[in-house]
């Protein structure tokens, strides 16, 4: 199988690859998007706005720092507990897993390399859409872990949307195969994640990440062993959501702080 990573330093990628490797899964290549790429920055800034800067700070600058004030598992504590020592995907190259850099995962050089590798399965550990030319070169398909419960909540900020709409049982993650639509591919694993009274909105993704990592690894294992069930989605079963406006995010934060106070 192969892995598509949003950056060389993605801790989520490092954890997924290492945990798969330890299960005996053969990773034949890691495709990595180059970070320093003006086109990419413009595209992601258009999508995420100023939130991109916070994302860069958290995922790149603070990536391995353990915040001792939090009481839940994070990717950092997972990596520490599992002794995942790799600092970048290049460390996997030293272990015999080739790493290929690109500006865009859909570019011809990636497609050519996939034709060579003929992977049985692929794992996607970053945001963005993949085109059909890439998807059809990945054997059984490309797995993604979406931070929302499908089919109901497709798209962006779906944790916030589920809370705003009062659907707290629709908060969680879904491992699914990617297709050309937005979060519309076959579902493999659904994992509702209950909210705790002490949860803060800006920390929720941090709490979700190690869960998503484990769900992804389990889903890959099930697919490779032939025990996974693929459940197709119907378009009319869900809605596509977009980035939530700050005025609505404030309402979600207020609702969550009232939960903290036990109101």
């Amino acid at each position, binding site marked *: 199988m192969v892995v598509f990573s949003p950056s060389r330093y993605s801790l989520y990628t490092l954890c997924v690859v290492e945990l798969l490797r330890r299960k005996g899964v053969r990773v034949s290549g890691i495709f990595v998007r180059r970070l320093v790429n003006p086109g990419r920055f413009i595209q992601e800034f*258009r999508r995420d706005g100023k939130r991109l800067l916070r994302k860069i700070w958290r995922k790149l600058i603070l990536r391995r720092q353990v915040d001792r004030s939090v009481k839940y598992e994070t990717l950092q504590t997972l990596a520490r507990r599992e002794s995942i020592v790799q600092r970048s995907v290049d460390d996997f190259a030293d272990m015999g897993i080739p790493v290929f850099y690109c500006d865009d995962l859909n570019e011809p050089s990636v497609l050519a390399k996939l034709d060579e590798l003929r992977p049985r399965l692929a794992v996607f550990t970053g945001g963005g859409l993949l085109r059909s030319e890439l998807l059809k070169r990945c054997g059984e398909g490309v797995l993604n872990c979406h931070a929302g419960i499908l089919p109901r909540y497709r798209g962006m900020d779906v944790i916030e*949307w589920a809370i*705003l*709409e009062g659907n707290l049982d629709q908060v969680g993650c879904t491992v699914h195969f990617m297709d050309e639509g937005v979060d519309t591919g076959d579902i493999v694993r659904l994992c509702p994640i209950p909210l705790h009274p002490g949860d803060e909105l800006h920390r929720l993704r941090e709490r979700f990440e190690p869960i998503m990592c484990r769900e992804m690894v389990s889903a890959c294992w099930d697919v490779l062993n032939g025990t996974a069930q693929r459940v197709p989605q119907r378009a009319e079963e869900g*809605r*596509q*959501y*977009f*980035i*939530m*406006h700050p*005025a*609505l995010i404030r*309402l979600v934060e*207020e*609702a969550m702080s*009232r939960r903290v106070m036990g*109101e």
Partner: protein
Amino acid sequence: MHVSYRFIRSEGLRFLSDARLRDHPALPFVGLEVALQFFDLPPGPAVSVDISDIVLPTASPAFKNLEADTLLILRKCLYAGKHLDLAARWAEGLMRFCEVRLSSLESRARQKWGTISAARLQLLEVGVFLLDAYFVQRDLRFLNTALKLTDQKWLFPPQPLLAFWPQPRLAAVWQWRMSLMITYLLAEIGAHHDG
């Protein structure tokens, strides 16, 4: 968008007392009853919305298919409580367009309608329609997109549009209407979460 309660009230009093606006065919005050009460403003004119003669749009619900009167027809459907599925499909189509094309909305609108004033007027009415659609269908995504439209400086410039030069300017009324509805709706949602 940062608009004060006082501004919404003062502009509201001016607009609501202007006979040219009260009789305007674009129905600037219909569907605002609850929001006007929230701001302690007088009620709008009693208008009965007759949709018996309207010609429903048959083109697929897309920004490129918007005609001059499409939004007014769809708003009338919402106010009359009829053809709500059609209105919902158009709201979804316009919402998606505005979300996906947010950064190029101004240039696309200008390309379609020719001038910045015409483009502004039409996109503001898109915002009004999305808020009306949210009010009837309670799909929060429509409110979300309307909020993003208010952040667009070409639609809501820092200096308020001249409201009465030379005629009452519908664009200024739409800005006011969006501000009124959004402020009311956010308060309503917040109160709902308070339980």
